[in-house]
């Protein structure tokens, strides 16, 4: 038993670590190939847009806000006029 579990643990370590390295090594090569292919054959025409997805509304100005601003400016102008 002692032997078995130790040997099982060893197997797990050897084949496990081996797979991790093989997998990530392949991933390195595939990623390099992919990047090369993209930059070679599919260069991006459009300027890169920020990849962080924005909540839909943060990009447009809230009409209420504009209203407030215009009101503020207007009152201010009245003050100036006096």
């Amino acid at each position, binding site marked *: 038993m002692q032997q078995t579990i130790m040997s099982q643990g060893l197997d*797990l370590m050897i084949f496990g670590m081996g797979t991790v390295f093989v997998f990530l090594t392949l*991933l390195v090569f595939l*990623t390099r190939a992919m990047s090369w292919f993209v930059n070679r054959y599919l260069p991006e025409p459009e300027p*890169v847009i920020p990849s962080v997805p924005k909540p839909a509304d943060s990009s447009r100005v809230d009409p209420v806000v504009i209203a407030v601003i215009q009101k503020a400016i207007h009152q201010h102008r009245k003050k100036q006029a006096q």
Partner: protein
Amino acid sequence: MDNLLGLWFESGIYHMTLGQAGMMVICALLLFLAIRKGFEPLLLVPIGFGGILANIPGAGLAFSAAENAILAGDPAFLADAARLLGADISATAKELVAMYGAAGYETHHALTELAKSADYHNGMLYNFYTVAIASGVAPLLIFMGVGAMTDFGPLLANPKTLFLGAAAQFGIFATVLGAVALSALGIMDFSVADAAAIGIIGGADGPTAIYVASKLAPDLLGAIAVAAYSYMALVPLIQPPIMKLLTNKEERKIQMTQLRHVSKREKILFPLVLLVLVALILPSAAPLLGMFCLGNLMRECGVVDRLSDTAQNALINIVTIFLGLSVGSKLEADTFLDPKTLGILVLGIVAFGIGTACGVLMAKAMNAFSTQKINPLIGSAGVSAVPMAARVSNRVGLEANGQNFLLMHAMGPNVAGVIGSAVAAGVMISIVRGMAGG
């Protein structure tokens, strides 16, 4: 009068065991660390709270209908249970619950039917655990959300940092060996499955650890999850000494070249490349890495932002609450208060240490063979613990050289570490099942 007695006999104080009281203190400590010290609060607050709920005496929130029926101690039911479990008629409720835990599917099925027909019910936390973790769905959805939050840009700009993410996973497997050694020496009693589940703590990735533990060692899940998240929070204390021990001032000073710009299309294709590789090499890692890639694709493709937003906000938050409470159900005293837990806590921190060391050493090894030097401090980020470990690399780097901003460079190995531990999870699950099968 009976009611008054009934209420007293039902009261918590009357039933409270020392173990339960102890667990409540431990859970209170977890809450303190989460709230006051900022230890991974998003997980440790629900986990700690769930742990308190799981240890409320007499409430049975963490038990199945069958266990609640046994613990209720109705003689008729106990007799049936003993018969079904093949136990001696004089067996205590506690013994029967233990035997129930060890029993197989048919016995569980039969006893559950029996308990339900006697109008006993699953505890709330038990139901959460069944739906969220036993089914495997909660860790997978968290992983999808993490994928939707991950920017592979730095990794794509410098793919060889993937090797650092690979090396740092050695902490996992060294710990597996340590665990089986403890068993072989008769100090602990870990099965190979237990050892694998404990090792994954070294992956420094919460959902991965919970996923593996739920498949290979559900009884240890509580301790494993607590260890994983606590040590992730302790990364700023655990890593720097090791990093400094293994590097000299010159190495820590190494400036790295500005990362190249990575195009949108590369970012869109990467999760698909990763998915195809998983499909070809390691199907057993498909659920974890598949959901991770889906989240990342939704993030990068730019046409499903509303799905990506939901995946990284409403959905992941909802799932986190249930995941935390479900993990808490495994902090029930009889499950958690076990010498194994101590072993897990010790092995877990060893795993972190070895992983950190291997990441740094791998970076130095790569420098020996490559002209374009990398700062070995970013090697430690290979354990994942995103983004904490990368921040640590950056901080230690700044100590050595005030102009040396390693954060972006460390993000590469950092996310590589996530992939690495998911791969390790997949391979361990398939090997261990093979061993069990064989």
